[in-house]
């Protein structure tokens, strides 16, 4: 790398830092969007394309890390039983914890109880953005039927064609297939799976490197994204639904606080701060949960923190394989950001449409939040919102106005969704890897 490219790289890296983001990237993007409103569509396309590029290494990282991790864990199941158990506990606790925190924050805020003026403002927005429904009354029923929650779960989880799932970025199915493949690999003698293992290790290393490179462009992507949002953002709607935003952000902050505490309890091991040593962490990463939070906040992508989390956990003498596996699984399944988002949106809609909050509705909200929050794995923006609202519709809430409203508010809240997912993934990974130190790594390496 010559000096010019190094300088450019350093400059781009600096742009991702919170201070540069707040003082440089965000004001510049806002100014750009304000000065060039006519270019909002172009900015939107560029931002969308950029977010797609940032997600590019997601699938290879997930396939390689989950397969290798599952193989390692299954091969020495007894030795890793504690990690397995803790990983499951971390996942389940994270998901349920996020939805409960969001539920209580939403209950406290009553986000859907709007003033009459706010209702008119929201109604005007919905009316402007929606058309009448045009239907043929006499058309023959297609017979596809309506999907209940059970149908949706069946559609969401069981894998069928791995290549099809990969092409469609169906992350839950990809994780399941990878885990099954990893377990299957562990039952075959190592000599026969060495080629695949080496290939997956190479894929994993390359994907991480690619992710590092791609993340350099994330500030530019965010500039386009914010610029397009500034020119199209509906401030009236934002002010009318401020309670919704406040409820969600407060839920995110509580989750962040919980993540910081959990991480601290589980990282008693001394941290290496030697910058020359691979796997070491910088001084800035000493408060890594906050670092993960801000890093995802400034890139609007939780996957952007994958390297940060694994590097930090490895530097704290946790088993790198376990760190890889738990990080990828926690980032992709323990999606606290979307889970909390679905909960707050569901309570908002229940308030808004004057629907009763009975015990069965509460249980349904919690189930749906976890299920559809997880289902957003690999999805961004409108696609993620559509999946989440599909779940909320199952509670008996009219989805069309809610979908329009959430799409309008998403440019602001999507940053927090990614940020809180990263922070809790780091804490959950630290919990899962705790008490599974280097000794395990050495043993597992010996076994292979």
């Amino acid at each position, binding site marked *: 790398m010559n000096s010019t490219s190094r300088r450019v790289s350093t400059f781009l890296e600096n742009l991702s830092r919170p201070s540069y983001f707040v003082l440089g990237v965000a004001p510049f993007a806002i100014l750009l969007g304000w000065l060039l409103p006519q270019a909002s569509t172009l900015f939107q396309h560029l931002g969308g394309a950029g977010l797609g590029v940032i997600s590019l290494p997601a699938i290879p990282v997930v396939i390689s890390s989950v397969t290798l991790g599952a193989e390692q864990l299954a091969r020495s199941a007894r030795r890793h039983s504690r990690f397995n158990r803790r990983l499951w506990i971390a996942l389940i606790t994270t998901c349920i914890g996020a939805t409960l925190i969001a539920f209580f924050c939403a209950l406290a805020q009553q986000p859907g109880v709007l003033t*009459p003026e706010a*209702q*008119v403002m*929201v*109604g*005007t927005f*919905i*009316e402007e953005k*929606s058309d*009448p*429904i*045009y*239907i*043929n*009354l*006499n*058309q*023959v*029923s*297609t017979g*596809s*039927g*309506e*999907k209940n929650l059970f149908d949706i779960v069946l559609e969401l989880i069981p894998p069928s064609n791995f290549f099809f799932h990969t092409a469609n970025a169906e992350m839950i199915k990809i994780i399941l297939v990878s885990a099954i493949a990893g377990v299957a690999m562990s039952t075959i003698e190592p000599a026969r799976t060495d080629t695949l293992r080496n290939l997956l290790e190479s894929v994993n290393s390359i994907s991480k490197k690619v992710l590092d490179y791609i993340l350099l462009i994330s500030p530019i992507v965010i500039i386009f994204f914010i610029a397009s949002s500034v020119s199209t953002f509906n401030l009236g709607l934002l002010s009318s639904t401020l309670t919704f935003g406040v409820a969600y952000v407060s839920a995110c902050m509580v989750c962040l606080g919980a993540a910081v505490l959990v991480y601290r309890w589980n990282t008693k091991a001394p941290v290496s701060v030697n910058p020359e040593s691979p796997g070491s962490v910088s001084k800035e990463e000493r408060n890594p949960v906050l670092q993960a939070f801000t890093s995802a906040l400034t890139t609007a992508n939780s996957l952007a923190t994958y390297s940060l989390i694994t590097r930090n956990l490895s530097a704290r003498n946790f088993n790198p394989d376990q760190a890889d596996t738990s990080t990828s699984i926690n980032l992709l399944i323990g999606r606290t950001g979307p889970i909390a988002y679905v909960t707050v949106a569901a309570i908002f809609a229940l308030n*808004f*449409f004057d*629907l009763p909050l009975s015990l069965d509705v509460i249980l349904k909200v919690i189930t749906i939040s976890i299920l559809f929050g997880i289902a957003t794995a690999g999805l961004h923006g409108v696609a993620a919102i559509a999946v989440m609202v599909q779940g909320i*519709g199952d509670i*008996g*809430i*009219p*989805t*069309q*106005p809610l979908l329009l409203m959430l799409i309008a508010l998403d440019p602001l809240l999507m940053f927090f969704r990614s940020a809180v997912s990263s922070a809790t993934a780091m804490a959950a990974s630290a919990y899962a890897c705790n008490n599974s130190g280097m000794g395990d790594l050495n043993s597992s390496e010996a076994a292979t």
Partner: protein
Amino acid sequence: MLHAGKSFLRFLLCSSLCLAFIATLADPVLAGPLPGPGDTAPGRIDLNAKPQLNPSIQAIRDSGVLRIGIAYPDNLPMYGHDNEGNLIGYDIDLARGMAQALQVEPIFSQPKVTYNRLIQLASADQVDVAIGKLSVTIPRLGYAKPVPYLNLHQSLLINRKVLDRISKDPDNIGPSLRTAPLRIGVISGSSHAVWGSTTFPKASFTTFPDWQTCVDALINREVDALFRDGFETSRIVKSKPRLALDYVPIILKDKIDNIAMYMGPRMEGLLPVAGLYINISTGVINEEDLFRRFKKEMRDSPVAMGKTNKVHDQAKH
């Protein structure tokens, strides 16, 4: 030789003239003199005959006015009164233009009767033309002849929660609606009160005296939906955006709602005049054209804003 040639030419000329004379006598058109008044011989045309006007037009010309009955109550921007009490609206302009084309004065009246009764008044020769966003229905055809000028569709303004209960699948809303036991509100004596049971065979219908009470019943949850044309249902949510959160218009693409002006039997001669006038002036327009044309006015529905309609009974302008 030269003399013989000249004689031959003279002979030819004379022969031609004789033949022309004979042919002229044989042709009745070219044969003069022209037939005089009162000459009614078969095959003869009296070119001085007094022209006879279409009886309907003659009757209107004789009276010097075109009596136009407008539906009650006002329904701007289609028909109604402005703040000064002047009649305005799309239908009013159409009727005025037609009167102008017939070279007579328009006289408007707005009897306080149902839409069906207004059409019956046209059949009873109380008005020459009945107009006011009147739909074409089979029972109405028994009384008067329609001249369509708007092609709308039947439509429901439905509670979103009810719709969500009926069908979550957007592709199957139609079949689900057809078989749903909906509670639907309609205006009494309207075309939609006639169509309702055929369009939604499983639904129960409640009639209300006017659109305002229909909307009140919907908001008070007395009914699940209102049944009217797509223009009116869409207009409610446009004029009162708060309602857009709870209610959504559904336009039935396969259920036409033709809007026409009606002529009584004595005025049947006006049908081609009205048809041609519509074609050369506004043309037969549809919902989308109306939405575009009245984008601003649609946001000021007097019904949705809770204003009371002015009563201009038998007002003449």
